[in-house]
């Protein structure tokens, strides 16, 4: 490469990096803003102070004030999200293995395909109303169980969809070899299929966890003050007559903790999962 060309090349690369820096700034600035607001006093925020003395007051009140339900809401989210995600992953793993690796009539596979398409297309408010009526009829509204079941139903087709692409990558010869060696169904699943599917299960699990943690309309419909999840709690701040903006900010920052952990430790899985569902 001649000197002039490489110089031009460098300049273009610098422009592109500038463009990326701008995009990252636009992405991060709102998070920095909300984090800063969460360390301000309400007065300092209302005055639009640029310089301020950081205070932990908002976090203290959100987490430990007797009138705040946030800690309970956070626990609710942890319970609902972990239980529904674990069950979805186990059920989807077995269903996926059966559907994609064994012979089923086409219509059985199609039912699951259409289910997953439909649940991706239908607004979840629609499903929320369907579940609400049923839960109320059997007296399960405002109960954990209703929300856990609803989240499972919402995310199971998505998990199946995501796992399908990972199942296809397992070479059939391995299963056949295990059978020839006399392995039972249980041994085959435990010793051969499950270990090979680990990356796929991780990617799907992390993604479903995030979706369940973030889910709002169904949680809003099926819970009350006692069983509400984190998004329901934050929405409640915004509906009060005098909005406690700085507390809402603190609650928002706390709600992002799982997402930040995922980004730190599972970023590769997230990217894999998000693209696996769409690009085939």
């Amino acid at each position: 490469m001649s000197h002039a060309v490489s110089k031009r090349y460098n300049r273009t690369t610098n422009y592109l990096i500038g463009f990326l820096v701008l995009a990252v700034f636009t992405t991060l600035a709102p998070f920095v803003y909300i984090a800063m607001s969460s360390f301000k006093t309400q007065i300092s925020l209302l005055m639009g102070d640029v310089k301020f003395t950081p205070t932990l007051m908002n976090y203290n009140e959100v987490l430990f004030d007797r009138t705040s339900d946030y800690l309970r809401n956070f626990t609710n989210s942890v319970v609902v999200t972990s239980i529904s995600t674990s069950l979805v992953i186990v059920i989807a793993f077995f269903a996926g293995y059966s559907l994609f690796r064994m012979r089923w009539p086409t219509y059985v596979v199609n039912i699951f395909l259409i289910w997953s398409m439909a649940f991706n297309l239908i607004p979840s408010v629609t499903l929320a109303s369907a579940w609400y009526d049923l839960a109320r009829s059997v007296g399960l509204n405002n109960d954990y169980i209703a929300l856990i079941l609803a989240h499972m139903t919402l995310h199971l087709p998505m998990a199946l969809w995501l796992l399908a692409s990972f199942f296809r990558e397992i070479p059939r010869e391995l299963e056949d070899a295990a059978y020839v060696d006399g392995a039972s169904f249980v041994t085959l699943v435990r010793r051969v299929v499950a270990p090979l599917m680990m990356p796929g299960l991780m990617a799907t699990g992390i993604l479903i966890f995030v979706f369940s943690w973030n889910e709002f309309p169904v949680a809003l419909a099926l819970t009350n003050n006692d069983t509400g999840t984190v998004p329901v709690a934050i929405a409640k701040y915004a509906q009060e007559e005098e909005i406690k903006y700085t507390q809402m900010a603190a609650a928002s920052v706390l709600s992002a903790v799982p997402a930040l952990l995922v980004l730190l430790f599972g970023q590769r899985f997230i990217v894999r999962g998000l693209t696996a569902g769409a690009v085939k």
Partner: protein
Amino acid sequence: MAHHNSLGKVLSLTPAVLIFAVLALLPVINLFIVSFHEVSWLGGAKQMEWVGVDNYIAIGDDPLFKAGVFNTIIVVLVATTAQVVIGLGLALACSSVGDKSRPFRALLILPLLIPGIVIGAIWRLMYNSEFGIFNLILESIGLSGHDWLGSSSTALAAVIVVDVWHWMPFAFLLLLAAVESLPRDVSEAAKIDGATAWQEFRKVTLPLLYPAIFMTFLFRAVMASKIFDEVFLLTAGGPGTSTEVVSFTIFQRYFLQDNAGYGSALSVSIIFVVSVIIVIALNANKSKGMSQ
């Protein structure tokens, strides 16, 4: 193969089938039945009065629903287009910068992982007419602030900006995967033939990306048509009906006004439209498969 243990095969699928039948199919059938009734609750007992197709006829005269459909279409078209254009730009930039862009990629996807409600809360603070960052900046350079969410001329645009910011990274991720899987030799051939960067993009890269761009647009359009969380927190459909969207209309009618019969009719109508789209998509796929 005969060695496939059929008991294991059936048992493995059973839980998923049960969930489908009891928790997906049954509630939707129930919703369908409810949509032909007027529902009221008396001391924890559900009262249903048959009203025939009245609820469905009422949809045609519902001003909220009309505004909701109109605004949803605007949001879908504008937000999705913006996301695909910006996402494509960033994907191309990342791919040509190469390995140095890795840290950028990780940071860019952060909004995807944050609850929609929290995104709404963040932007509600920033848009605030008295102390929000946008007005503070405007006032600091001598301009007057504006009530972004409170005036009907800017509320929908403000919501669209939030949606673009929230979901652009998704378009970026999908398009980046597509850009990275482009064959290298084609672009090298174009360079050897003396094509300028723009010619190469316009005549080589872009046409190769059309299928991925179309898929990304479709995916985002479907997701954008369901917009709810951000609207709930930012504007609750207001001022007036200027940010009313379909999901929010259903929520208002069914839950806020406790009109389960009519709300169910709205839900069933949406499910019907979605089903028609699925049937068309499946048939298109089938005929494409046969022609190949």
